[in-house]
């Protein structure tokens, strides 16, 4: 039986269909989760997809963090449930304090959509183990507030513990500290990522298919767990 991967829809979530498609292409079974339910239907992992939940009002992810479904997800994540936050999902993870730091307005002050080159810096997390360390990939990036910030001590800690999952190459599109595109928690089950691997899973619609290993990784991780 294939692993069941929950995909959460908040009001204003946009990339939930895309995340579900990526799970399906990777061989998993996507399960729709609703922000207002605290029941996460016994899923094996959760994706918080991109979008503008609650219109980005107050602060990106700041309202969604209090949704009933997040209580279950936060508890699960602390117990080892694999959670991937993409873009707005990353913002929600940061607001939930499952990951450190903050995401600020892009340095250019513009929303930016581009095909972005990344280097996978850590291939040990539950969402990156189908990559090899230092693998270079191209996936879409699209955000207005993707400028990762943390104090120098936190950044040094993330670097020292190998918790920077992906780094921007060639161009730093949003001004992120130390070109950070994604990070993980200590245990490696929670990953936050600003670029969009779910938009790079089909040759027809993506710039590449190099985003797919994020979704196969968690299936591999669940089988071996």
């Amino acid at each position: 039986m294939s692993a069941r991967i929950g995909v959460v829809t908040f009001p204003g979530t946009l990339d939930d269909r895309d995340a579900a498609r990526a799970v399906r292409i990777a061989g998993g079974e996507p399960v729709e989760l609703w922000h207002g339910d605290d029941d996460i239907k016994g899923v094996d992992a959760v994706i918080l997809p991109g979008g503008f939940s609650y219109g980005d009002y107050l602060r990106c992810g700041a309202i969604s963090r209090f949704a009933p479904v997040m209580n279950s997800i936060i508890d699960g994540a602390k117990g080892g449930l694999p959670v991937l936050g993409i873009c707005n999902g990353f913002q929600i993870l940061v607001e939930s304090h499952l990951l450190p730091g903050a995401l600020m307005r892009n340095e250019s002050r513009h929303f930016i959509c581009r095909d972005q080159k990344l280097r996978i810096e850590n291939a040990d997390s539950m969402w990156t183990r189908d990559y090899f360390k230092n693998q270079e990939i191209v996936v879409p990036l699209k955000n207005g507030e993707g400028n990762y910030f943390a104090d120098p001590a936190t950044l040094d800690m993330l670097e020292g513990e190998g918790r920077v999952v992906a780094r921007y190459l060639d161009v730093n599109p949003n001004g992120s500290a130390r070109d950070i595109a994604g990070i993980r928690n200590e245990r490696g089950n929670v990953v936050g990522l600003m670029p969009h691997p779910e938009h790079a899973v089909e040759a027809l619609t993506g710039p590449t298919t190099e985003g797919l290993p994020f979704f196969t990784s968690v299936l591999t991780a669940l089988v071996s767990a």
Partner: protein
Amino acid sequence: MTDTVSAAQSNPDAPQPFGELGLKPDEYERIREILGRRPTSSELAMYSVMWSEHCSYKSSKVHLRQFGEKAPKTDALLVGIGENAGVVDIGDGWAVTFKVESHNHPSYVEPYQGAATGVGGIVRDIISMGARPLAVMDPLRFGPLDAPDTRRVLPGIVSGIGGYGNCLGLPNIGGEVVFDSTYLGNPLVNALCVGSMRHEDIHLASAKGVGNLVVLYGARTGGDGIGGVSVLASETFDADGPAKRPSVQVGDPFMEKLLIEATLEVLHAGLVEGIQDLGGAGISCATSELASNGDGGMHVWLDRVLLRDQTLSPEEILMSESQERMCAIVTPEKLDEFMALIKKWDVEAVVIGEVNASGRLTVDWHGEQIVDVPPRSVAHDGPVYERPYHRPSWQDALQADSPDSLPRPTDGEQLRATLLDLIGAPNLASKSWITDQYDRYVLGNTVLAQPEDAGMIRVDEITGRGVAISTDCNGRYAKLDPYNGAKLALAESYRNVSVAGAKPLAVTNCLNFGSPEDPEVMWQFSEACRGLADGCLELGVPVTGGNVSFYNQTGDTAILPTPVVGVLAVIDDVDKRTPMAWSAPGQIVYVLGDTRDEFAGSEWAHHVHGHLGGIPPVVDLQRERVLSEVMVAASISGIVAAAHDISDGGIAITLTEMAMKSGIGVKVSVPSDLDPFVFCFAESTGRAIAVVTSAHEAAFVASCAAAGLPATRLGEAGGDAVEIVGQFSASISELRLSHEATIPAIFAS
């Protein structure tokens, strides 16, 4: 004090501010005749907005009729002109709806919100047909790139389109960005949306079934955009200053996203009898159109409308253009279920009225009747003007001023310099600074997006069935000859979807012109309508709907006549699409069609010489049809590797765009019968560059020959430069440098 129907009867001669509301004396008299009394102030408000140029099409109607009268016979049209948007059958039980609308005037006054609400409005038109929106496109026109006012409006408009569309979750897959001095002070912001649905999900805007309820849902009604329709969009900007520029509506894309999801849920659950979005003229428009299209009677309790501002008067509530609102007709038995689904999305809803058999639209305000009108007289039987028109006195002189005597490059070095200059010209330069602010990936079905010839979206993930859309217009051609200019816009758009491998099915338009009260502008408009209707008949593609924007002029200076044409095409399997650029060295490059010495209205004449005169390129729609058939067939059989339309700037620009896209150069020879300059830069129509592999070359050439389409082998892809043998070579890197520097140099600081 509220003006009621009984007050209107008891005080029949009270003076009324019809002039300030934009109504002419004879229009006011007609309202009095229809009602048999003076209108109440609420009725006056309704008539004034609904009879405005923007809502009633009173100046354009007599000309727009041709689109119906000359419509080609086709089985593809499921819903034609007159509904919120036309609906086209694309096969396998799928229907597609699409439409383009203008938001020009609000975007000039308040660029961000004007452009944002333009996206919001067109998206609601698509939802109200029962369709899930798939993508948006934005044809934009601005004054000169370096003009101070362009710096004011362009960044705001682009942010507004991105800010709204990105947050709504719709990919932006194409459009246009054009600069011309006539758009200074009158930027054009047109917005297109395309959506898909199953045939059985098509919904119409009609209020049928006595006893059925009228439900208003979405955002609360506020004071924004009041009078926007009648005043803002229907009067020329006075060169002297801001006499009539009231508030522009403010958009909330988050609410619109909830509205999309909530609306599609109630539609798919079968809970809706009729539906209408609220755009221009707000509740006045929605209630009168629903009643007029339905059984003809409706009663509304206006005091039930949920308000953002409790001090609003009934007249203001009727006229408010607050965004993100919808109106649905629901049976009483299904109301609870309807309300529950709307609430699931945290959207507010309230029953404001009921369908009845009275034949009248009546509105109460706290127990007093303030409106009692025949709904058809408000919604559909507005004034119709036969505006006078005549050919401008300067038209002959303009056409006689041919570009033939303009100095031309005479050697390879000058040709090279011309190419490097033109590829960086504002109209041909890279628009990435703009389009990179739009999400083109969301929903995961974008197959082609800018800078490809057409945007292409996968509709069915199982079969790969999809649609392609392009919007085009060269306003300079339309100025030189509005009849053929409109046909040329159609031809280019038709060609753009065809070279991508999709079969053209239907047409939408956004007709942007100056003041209809100027007979010379009216002549441009009438000629453009005639040309577009004739062209659509000849190509067999019906017009399914569109929009007219008049009064795009400041003082006596009207914009270039700009009939933007959008063509929708279907492709059975998006996997077979034809991309614009070659993918490997050694692929063989052909030009299809005939190249002639045609430079009137060209980008070369415009950019290099600032010249506009002469007769625009010959339009040959039979040739366009053959080219389309060959390219669609070649895409299906897989014998063409890439193709790119030849238009603005000519063959040298087309080849350069292909080289920059692929990163692989090209080496071509000038055909022996052509002058090198004409070969490089002429803008003859009915042409495309086609790229084939050696394995398919013979089959492709044979297919062109069989169709009578000239195909000339030019050379091969390869190297890292665009080389015209014996003339010049320009490296991709130096071409990119010119192409990519222009727009950021102005805005990226």
